[in-house]
């Protein structure tokens, strides 16, 4: 009897728990999906999101702090002059190397480099992943007085 | 009531000749023993100090010597980590293996051999574990020179 009842129980439990499982999954068919339609609907990212950098070019004094602290040496900075009158000729971030640690934003004395909310960096070549922020045409480079359309991450030490 | 003795005490009693140095205070108490008696020392820790688990084997290259640091875990009573150290000559670091008593030592010792070049005599399977078989050198040595290329792959970038 023991073996038989165990056998019967085995089959019965298999059937029963299947229906318990169906009781969980079937109601979901009639619920709203959880996912977002990505390119059209986007998640609202927090203002400290560590995405692609934003650079306020007129504030930069070319002090090289960000270059020195970068753990992966992904920032290349060239400028004519130093301090307040520095004119940036090159501020390249190599996103094939960047690990988005936001360390570069921390020691900046003028708080000119920020992490922005853009996260989709794609390119067909490695060269496309190197972005020059000294180029004022760059949509993520902001000149003096220009309004930044989104809140920026503040990791800088105050 | 085993397991409550401090390792320094237990080792000084059991293996007085083997103990080289005892540091009982500070952030990192440890007992330095002779390399030849590491197996006995570990056994003393297991039997008298309640070290039930080998937690980690680390190798440190100190330019003039290589240290292998064993951390044992005492689960109960008074959970703690017990540390043994051995100092080895840098040119030919050899220390007996713990892999026969502590199965955890098998892979940990292989890793130490792989990255630091410490040979564990008597180890059943002392081959490189993380790096490829044909890798040259032991990267965690302080004078390790990074290779220019590996099988035609440029490593300088």
């Amino acid at each position, binding site marked *: 009897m023991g073996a038989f009842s165990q056998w019967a129980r085995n089959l019965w439990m298999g059937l029963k728990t299947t229906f318990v499982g169906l009781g969980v*999954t*079937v109601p*979901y068919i009639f*619920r709203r*999906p959880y996912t977002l339609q990505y390119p059209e609907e986007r998640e609202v990212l927090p203002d400290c999101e560590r995405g692609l950098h934003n650079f306020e070019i007129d504030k930069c004094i070319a002090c090289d702090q960000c270059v020195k602290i970068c753990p992966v040496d992904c920032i290349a900075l060239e400028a004519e002059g130093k301090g307040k009158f520095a004119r940036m000729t090159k501020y390249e971030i190599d996103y094939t190397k960047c690990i988005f640690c936001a360390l570069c934003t921390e020691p900046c004395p003028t708080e000119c480099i920020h992490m922005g909310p853009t996260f989709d960096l794609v390119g067909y070549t490695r060269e496309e992943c190197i972005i020059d922020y000294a180029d004022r045409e760059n949509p993520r480079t902001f000149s003096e007085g220009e309004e930044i359309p989104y809140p920026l991450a503040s990791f800088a030490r105050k | 009531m085993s397991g409550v003795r401090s390792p320094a005490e237990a080792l000084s009693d059991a293996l007085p000749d083997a103990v080289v140095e005892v540091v009982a205070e500070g952030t990192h108490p440890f007992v330095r023993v002779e390399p030849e008696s590491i197996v006995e020392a570990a056994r003393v820790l297991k039997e008298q100090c309640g070290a039930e688990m080998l937690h980690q084997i680390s190798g440190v290259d100190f330019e003039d010597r290589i240290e292998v640091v064993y951390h044992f875990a005492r689960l109960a009573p008074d959970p703690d980590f017990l540390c043994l150290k051995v100092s080895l000559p840098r040119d030919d670091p050899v220390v007996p293996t713990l892999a026969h008593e502590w199965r955890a030592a098998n892979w940990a010792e292989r890793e130490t051999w792989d990255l630091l070049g410490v040979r564990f005599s008597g180890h059943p399977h002392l081959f490189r574990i993380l790096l490829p078989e044909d890798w040259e050198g032991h990267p965690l040595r302080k004078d390790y020179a990074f290779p220019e290329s590996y099988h035609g792959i440029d490593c300088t970038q």
Partner: protein
Amino acid sequence: MIGAEPLSSSLAAWLAALFGVGATWPIQALAMLIVATGVVALVVTPVGLGGVYLERKLSGRIQNRRGPNRVGPYGLLQTLADGIKLLVQEDIVHKAADAALFRFAPYVVFLAAFTGYVVMPFAPGLTAADLDVGIFFFLAMIGIETIGVVMAGWSSNNKWSLLGSMREVAQVVSYELPLGLAAMCPVIASGSLSLNTITDMQAGPIWNWFVIRNGYWAIVMVPAFLIFYTAGLAAAKRLPFDLPEAESELVAGFHTEYSGMRFGMFFLPEYAVMLSISGVATVLFLGGYHDPFGLSAGSLAGVWWWGLIWFFLKTTVLFLLQIVLRWTLPRLRIDQVMYLCYKGLLPVAMACVVLAAVLRLL
């Protein structure tokens, strides 16, 4: 006999009249071929494609996702787009494979899966061939699919594929037994192996259906139906029994090495078999193309679209249940699959057959 002549017979008569010859066997064969092709092309393939779509959409909704929604309205054309993608994809036959067998295997699977539809009574008169041994023809076709899978697994020269195809053989051949025995119950009840005859025995209101025939037949038929359905899941390699292609164990089992349309020829039959199993379960237990109100035996007798609607309604419900089950249950282990077959389903199926015989004699 309720219902019109089988479509092939009418077509044969028409063809005979067209060519001005008697309805001899070449004409009949030609008519059957045309009907079979028509059924596969016009009914099964769209339904198979729809099945893929349903599976993806339903699994999406179960998992809080949307499922396909980009190609066409509600993503309806997604499967078609995938089919086109498969067609233009490179057909890779890798160097170590047994090229001839490797190329041939998908056709065997494809043919076997779709040939099963030849005996399927979709609606009154809408059967490609009303064989006297229809149910056995159908079960045999499911068995033949196994050969194609073994060919694929062996010729791939991949150990994972081999293991997958061996699992397939062990599983499908074993589950043929409970599948066949469970199918015997309606056969005993009706006294015929022809799917059309079995269907027509169930004409009339819902209590004529074999699954609850006259009330007392339910003792036999409900377990037999469950066994048939479960074994059908195994024969279709659906998820509690998807061991031959167990993605997390065997990568993709027997079709690991296939690409392009050859992969598609394994993929589509899976849905075709799911659907045909559901269809045969409908025919055997749920009254086939008869509606539950008895209209198909009365005022709407022999009206093919009325039958078609009800056949696909019932089949689709069973089909959807297969899909929902797949996304609910974890996978069995190979020994548990065998345990369930030989120690679980088979004894019960045998008892059902015996009991059915007793009920029949009463």
